[in-house]
């Protein structure tokens, strides 16, 4: 398992910077990747990001693979106008709950903020033996 770096370390700060640059370059694309568009908003040439920063790539995969309960998602609250950050309940029939009051005017910025929130929330040793729980015995990670 690749450790989750702390935000205040050089690794954490580097990843935050690259992630932000990639996210900013994707504004306007009907999609998103942590890659940098040579021309902002145009995916013709994309480089950097997860294709060149091995640690960022693996940390993002670790984050994406977290089980649904408590997972952060983006919710579009006004079509093409407003987005907010919410957290999944992990219980069928219980809707996601908003976790911040911040309203975004694009669908990329909340994805960056979620990256930062996860850096703060995930322990550095996430996934190592000290985190063993009963759910490991019945694949409660709910990967596909």
């Amino acid at each position, binding site marked *: 398992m690749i450790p989750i770096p702390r935000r205040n370390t050089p690794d954490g700060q580097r990843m935050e910077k690259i992630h932000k640059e990639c996210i900013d370059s994707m504004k306007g694309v009907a999609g998103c*990747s942590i890659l940098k568009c040579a021309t902002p908003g145009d995916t013709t040439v994309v480089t950097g990001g997860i294709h060149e920063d091995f640690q960022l790539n693996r940390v993002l995969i670790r984050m994406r693979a977290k089980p*649904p309960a408590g997972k952060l998602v983006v919710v579009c609250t006004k079509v093409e106008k407003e987005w907010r950050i919410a957290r999944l309940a992990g219980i069928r029939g219980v809707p996601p709950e908003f976790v911040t009051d911040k309203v975004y005017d694009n669908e990329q910025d909340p994805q960056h903020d979620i990256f930062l929130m996860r850096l703060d929330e995930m322990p550095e040793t996430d996934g190592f033996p000290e985190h063993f729980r009963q759910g490991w015995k019945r694949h409660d990670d709910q990967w596909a």
Partner: protein
Amino acid sequence: MSWMRITGYADKFGVHPGDKIKFYVNCDGPKEYKAEIVKMIHGDTNPRGPGLIEEKIGASCDGTYPGMKQVIYSGSYGFVADKPQFKIESFTLQCWIWPTAPKTHPKYWKHGAQGLVTKWCDGKGYGLFLNEDGCVELRINDEKITTGVQVRDHAWHFVAASYDAETGEAILYHEPQIQYALDPEIPPVTKKVSTKLAYVDGTPTVIAGYCGGLDSSPQAKASVPAGTIIAGHYNGKIDSPRICSKALSRLDIETMKLGGQTGLTERRNSGPSDRLSACIVAAWDFSDGINTIMGKDTGPYLFHAQIVNCPTRAMTGHNFNGHVFDWKSAPEQYGAIHFHDDDVDDARWAVSFEWDVPEGTSSKCYAAKLTSADGDEDYIPFWVVPRVGEEQSKIAFMVPTISYMAYANEHLANNAGGAELLVYRVPIMQQQNMFLSEHREYGGSIYDTHTDGSGLCLSSRLRPILSIRPKYDHFLSQSPWQYPADLHLVYWLEKMGYAYDVITDEDVTYDGLARLENYNVVITGSHPEHNSGPQLDALHNYTQRGGRLMYMGADAWYWVHSYHPAYDGLGRGVITEMRRCESGIRTWRADPGEYYHQGTGELGGMWRYRGRYLHSVAGTGMSSEGFDISTYYSRTEESNDERVAWAFEGIGYDEKLGNFGLVGGGAAGTELDIVDTLLGSPPHTLVVATSAGRHTEAYLLVMEDYGFSQQGIDGTQHPRVRSDIAYHETPNGGACFAFSSIAFCGALPWNNGDNNISKLVGNVVNRFMQDGPLPPPPAAAYVHRGRADYDPPMNKQRK
């Protein structure tokens, strides 16, 4: 926050001119709503595209209607109407159970006791339950007896209970089929009960639930039986339920597992023995009539249970032996029904308004647009389809309605931990997803697991399907998907001024070749992944006879689907079934022995494993998928072959084809198809453009293309992670053009349709729509070709 106060559905997907279509609307809050029929042209709100485009047509049903709340009574069960034979003084109840959610979270949407076999309502009657703590419980009026032992989930248990009114002795049995080394024994629980069984009139006997009461509200007419609310929906399998009218000994209970044997000259009673036959009230055998919505009673009264909300049948029973995998060959091993608390076959709402579609109505995409003065809004899409023989155009757009049903009300972003890994970014949910996340009664998609975690393999169109909506971006692509994505193509057809008809998957499934043969060209949607066998037959017959097929997307012709015949009386294609078997892209996986459809009995899974490779239908087949961003195509040398060079008139050889678009920002993206002559692409197929080498790490090779887990399968490394635009001729002047990417149609509206993808597609439509056979290829094109040895040296020399 209230997300969607107006929702609705229609009784039909496709309606003929001259026929009636009925609309069912839930309007929960606003006193009234406005309904207008609109022609749907573009549903994508992306500011980089043309935006939402709809046209009012001035239909006779346009107007303002009173709002009425309508609810869906989801959750499957079997019931028999109130009959005197069930109103007994003593009893024995027994069945096998395989519970999947015996104990639920207190916040779970249907937390509480679950009914197994019940004739119980409001503290009167009898029944076997799982209580709120997940323990087997016997109820005799308001007396409750439990073992106090939580049943193991996903395991078979035999449960039984008897009550002797004369002695007052009640006995409850819970016998797990599997005993692990450290499992404590579960002795039968005996209790003296001094009560005389009483009954609430009208209480049905229920399997997998119990009678929650009678309700005279207008909404409750949608429950079955109308006005009787079934509560305590059980999640899991039930096999061989029995009700007897006396308290049986444990030995007699064992014998009664044999059920209601049919009579013979030498053994003339229903039941395993003469003595026991006298007490049988009902003995259901779910292995008989698996393709029906009836639970057969083999007892003397023929109390066949009506099965509501289409639970999953053809499920292995407690006695499955692992030697036979087709329920038709050994039905006695398939005596289980898997009930789910979120199954829904038909919302059964009251009709809100109707439209008599005038003769002569243009065959197009339409929707009933519903709005309130407070800004509430919903659309109910439908399609006006000409009758066979009354086609209006040379071009048909085949609307992939089976695929729409497969994705109906999809919950993946909310449920699946792996969903974000798949899309490689943070999922974005919309109001439809938020509404569905707390309205599980609207049912899920065939991509979802039920609320008990088991695979969802049946989808009904008789319910609001909030994913078939304009202005809806799907979490998978952060852009339109399926219905709204197909409107990219519709916009382009309209913008370019083509006359076209629309037909649906169900039309092709039921009408076969007749549905297609009067068109010069059939154009698919962006993602026709889910198909019936008759539909694939029709497409093959069409192209073999000279028809032209334009395959506008990717990951098509993939899964085996069938419409459930038990619902044919409600219209065409009401419920579609699919099983996710041993390979393919599976968000859940069917259990061993559960690969055969309950409706048609055919083997489910991928068409590929039925001997029908995807690549054989239009020339290309699924290679990979990724959902972050899209890219563009480059032409290949084969695009200059005179067999196909006409398609590139006006397009420079070095142009970047489709480095723009409303899905991922490029024409090549999300799911990708390639030519593979070993997987069914005709050997003379030309690859005219490819996106090879340009995809991101998010794109991964499909699992059916490799035999073991290995590195090197992503878009930055694997040569088959690409999209091939391909062309091949079919006999009698027919042809197929495959554009091989789900994102492809998203490039068509770019720059108001003035772009090189639009040019390419226009060239193909113009050639394919002409009357008569296409011009034959040059004589030199007729050469022998292999499959693995695709391009032998002698052919190269000819070039």
